[in-house]
């Protein structure tokens, strides 16, 4: 059993991964899988409806799962379709997260009223919306950094509800019993209305009734054009700017110029109508025809949408996080029992998790046509990826499970951080003008991120040394020596990459702004990491620190790296501060304190270390 255990674990792992990769099947008569692949343009990027549904849910409630009041579990696309076509139902789903007690009080809501004590439905919030609007206006007039947590929570909720409202106006007006019928009537009235308008212009008698009716249509469409969140109508075939996708409302407004309603508007009105009346046959037919027609005009886009929906449903990063946890646990247990079998199993699981994250990162790169790191979210993915590469090497060389423990831990933590960073919305966002340079993203950003990953890994190895040494008797001198060499090697690696990364950043600065170094906070953060690594190396060369000191310095490196990775963004100054985050500040503070506490523990006399008690070096 012991002998075959690693193979059993490997096989089970692979089977599990294969299961996640299997294409999703429709569970109802509706071809929801097909519809979820329909591409639309949102925030500058053409993405499948599935992504819109998932990211909107993450923004609104921090998770993708929706349960209706009657206990049905909805997929993200079902939820989105309900919002867009059956909003009277969607308004009853508890999908809006409110945690701030004062904000709840604003709505006369209690924690118990919410699903999971924090999620509420639109209907629960609706009666006091005007109060929220007032508070939001008050909060908005306060400068960003000076806002209280209440003001921030109010604005956040206001923005989220705005998003929810805009989603409702994406395909059809929520109050229309049948938008398709409405549009057809509009189309019929249009020629007469145009005549009427011309007559009116020329101060001649005109059909006032038709004129006012069409005027009402216009106002309705205009509201949809202003508020629709999706741009689902593809650019016209003869439009020189093929990125010029439009809202349904905008496209309808253009009808006044073209004289006939864009057939794609009809498609979406029909699709929404079929969903509204729950007619699967019509729904599937319209979706199939539309996709076929799109596939002819935008074959590349359709392929991307397909891959992106598969990527969404496979959730490689969530699965990898589970594998990392398993690898970590197995590796830790290998220090207690079955050293060889568990160590090997842990190594295989870490390898599977690594392969999954690699595939996920590659898929994102292909979808975005960008290097791996483009924003804070992807930097978290990549920091973990780079650290795990080093862990795989360490484990391959030393075969003492330390690499797997470190890899499992760092892999899981970075994916957890990434998960929380993803709550801000679509993680494949468009690059702001300054950052729009694949060359520098590929060189500077990637190198510096590898440097972050390596510095963290050195710190983590230091933590393993301290925790094993102080709390367990398992740190024998061979293991201690091995960790010492690992940390030294990783610090050398980190020094090199963070230095080269920082320099490349300077060169980017010189190329883009004519100055190599500007003492910008992000640059300073990178510099501090380089100098800290240099300090570790010089302190060791100069004999100022031995094993234990090296570990403490490496652990402090965690603080240094976290500060320049996240702390700098919290300052909100400088050219580089693109990701301002708030709550993360407390997490950062907690993390720093925990690291300091561990350094203090390492300061205990060696006689108090369980591994060294009785055999002082």
């Amino acid at each position: 059993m012991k002998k075959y255990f690693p193979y059993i674990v490997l096989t089970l792992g692979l089977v599990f991964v294969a299961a996640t990769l299997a294409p999703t099947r429709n569970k109802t008569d509706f071809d929801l899988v097909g519809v979820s692949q329909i591409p639309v343009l949102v925030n500058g990027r053409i993405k499948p409806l599935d992504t819109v549904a998932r990211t909107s849910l993450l923004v609104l409630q921090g998770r993708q799962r929706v349960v209706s009041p009657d206990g049905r579990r909805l997929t993200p696309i079902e939820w989105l379709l309900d919002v867009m076509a059956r909003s009277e139902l969607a308004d009853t789903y508890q999908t809006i997260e409110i945690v701030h007690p004062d904000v709840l009080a604003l709505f006369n809501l209690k924690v118990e009223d919410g699903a999971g004590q924090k999620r509420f439905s639109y209907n629960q919030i609706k009666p006091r919306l005007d109060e929220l609007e007032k508070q939001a206006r008050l909060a908005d007039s306060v400068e960003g950094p000076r806002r209280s947590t209440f003001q921030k929570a109010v604005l956040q909720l206001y923005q989220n509800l705005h998003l929810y409202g805009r989603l409702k106006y994406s395909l059809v007006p929520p109050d229309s019993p049948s938008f398709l019928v409405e549009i057809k009537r509009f189309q019929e009235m249009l020629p007469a209305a145009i005549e009427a308008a011309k007559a009116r212009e020329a101060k001649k008698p005109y059909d006032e009734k038709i004129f006012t009716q069409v005027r009402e249509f216009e106002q309705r469409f205009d509201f949809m054009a202003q508020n629709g969140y999706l741009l689902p109508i593809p650019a016209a075939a003869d439009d020189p700017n093929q990125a010029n996708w439009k809202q349904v409302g905008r496209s309808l407004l253009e009808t006044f110029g073209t004289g006939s309603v864009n057939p794609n508007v009809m498609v979406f009105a029909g699709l929404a109508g079929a969903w509204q009346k729950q007619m699967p046959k019509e729904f599937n037919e319209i979706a199939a025809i539309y996709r076929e027609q799109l596939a002819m005009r935008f074959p590349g886009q359709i392929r991307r949408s397909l891959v992106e929906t598969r990527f969404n449903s496979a959730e490689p990063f969530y699965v990898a996080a589970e594998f990392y946890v398993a690898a970590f646990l197995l590796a830790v247990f290998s220090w207690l029992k079955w050293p060889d079998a568990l160590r090997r199993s842990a190594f295989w699981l870490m390898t599977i998790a690594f392969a999954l994250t690699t595939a996920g990162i590659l898929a994102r790169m292909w979808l975005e046509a960008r290097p791996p790191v483009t924003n804070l979210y992807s930097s978290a993915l990549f920091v973990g990826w780079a650290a795990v590469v080093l862990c795989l090497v360490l484990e391959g060389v030393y075969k003492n499970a330390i690499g797997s423990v470190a890899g499992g831990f760092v892999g899981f933590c970075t994916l957890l951080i990434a998960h929380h960073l993803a709550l801000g919305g679509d993680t494949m966002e468009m690059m702001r003008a300054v950052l729009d340079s694949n060359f520098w993203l590929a060189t500077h950003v990637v190198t510096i991120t590898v440097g972050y990953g390596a510095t963290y890994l050195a710190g983590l190895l230091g933590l393993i040394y301290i925790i094993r040494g102080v709390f367990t008797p398992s740190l024998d001198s061979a293991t201690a020596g091995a960790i010492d060499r690992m940390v030294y090697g990783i610090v050398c690696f980190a020094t090199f990459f963070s230095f080269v990364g920082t320099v490349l950043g300077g060169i980017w600065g010189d190329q883009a702004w004519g100055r190599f170094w500007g003492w910008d906070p992000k640059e300073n953060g990178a510099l501090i990491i380089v100098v800290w690594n240099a300090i570790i190396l010089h302190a060791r060369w100069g004999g100022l620190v031995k094993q234990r000191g090296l570990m403490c310095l490496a652990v402090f490196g965690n603080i240094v790296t976290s500060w320049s990775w996240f702390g700098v963004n919290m300052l909100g100054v400088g050219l580089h501060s693109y990701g301002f985050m708030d709550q993360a500040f407390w997490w950062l503070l907690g993390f720093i304190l925990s690291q300091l506490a561990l350094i203090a523990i390492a300061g205990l006399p060696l006689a108090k270390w369980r591994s060294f008690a009785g055999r002082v070096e």
Partner: protein
Amino acid sequence: MRDLLTGLLRFFASLQLTVVLLVFSIMLVFVATLDQVNLGIWAVQEKYFRSFFVYWPVPGSTLSFPVFPGGYLVGGFLFANLIVAQFYRFTFTWRKIGLVLAHSGLVLLLVGELLAGLWQEDFQLRLDQGETKNFSESSRLYELAIIDTTDPKWDDVVAIPEAMLAAKTAVQHPKLPFRIAIKDYYPNATLEMRRENTEGAPSPATAGFGPRLVATPLPPTYREDERNMPAAFAELIGPDGTLGTYLVTPMLVMPQTFSVGARNFSLIMRPARAYKPFSLTLLELRHDVYPGSEIPKNFSSRVRLQSADGKDNREVLIYMNNPLRAGGYTFYQYQMNEQSRFSVLQVVRNPSWLLPYISCTIISIGLLFQFGISLAAFIAQRRTPANAPAA
């Protein structure tokens, strides 16, 4: 004496000193970064990096004490440490060539940063659409320009830098038939119309717009989105006595004019100018956003570059990550206002721009070499079974 010298050499060559200095530099950079929130990037550089000591002003007094070594001091000691260590401690072997390279590169990098600090000039060039300029303007400093407009064909300008106003230096210039005495100077101020029949000190100004205005001093601002608006009272004194005291401040956009004998002058305080041997015309500015979003995709300015000697006359597109380099200057897209149709280019001149490239290449090669040797030794050691730890 000899002992003292050896002691000093030992001190400067020691790795302990290196570590202490590196720790100092980290602390310096860290505090300076935090302080940017209060002071802004320029003031921070002056206070922490381009100084020998960081001073702590005692609140409520004009006293300030040096509390921490500044950038020049830490950098200088590091520099000395590097040099002395290289010569004193190192016996040259091929195995150490990586370290030698890395550290010599570092020396060059420090020198480069010092030179950049001393030589680098930053200016801004604000162009309205269609406008042509052959000068750029300082984003922080002003100058008092006295313009002789007697001849309609050309202006003869004497410009007094703000630093001289601040020092209240009296200026006498051969081109001017009067000398200028600065009676008062505020680094930052606000202007108000003087209300009639109100109490309060009469304006020190006796001529121009000054008597009708009240200039109230404000504490200087260091924020990046605000500018200091200095104000000064300048008395013009001719050979036969005073010609009047003028209030000068960039808040007065219109020049104040006066005549001395047959000559006409106008007086204006404006951003300090740096004239260039070429001119730029803003032909077109563009700000693109990604469709269906507010995310900026690109800012670009199409300009015509014409050199004074007529050798250069071409159209250039300046956009993000693609600056214009001409005559030793780099022009990059800095700000833009599409509604008001103006574009601001940042202009940087840095004669030592090449040094970081060279030094960084040397350091990178050195590190690669050094760590490569260590790695090779480690692998070789593990391949020898006798030395392998029990795994």
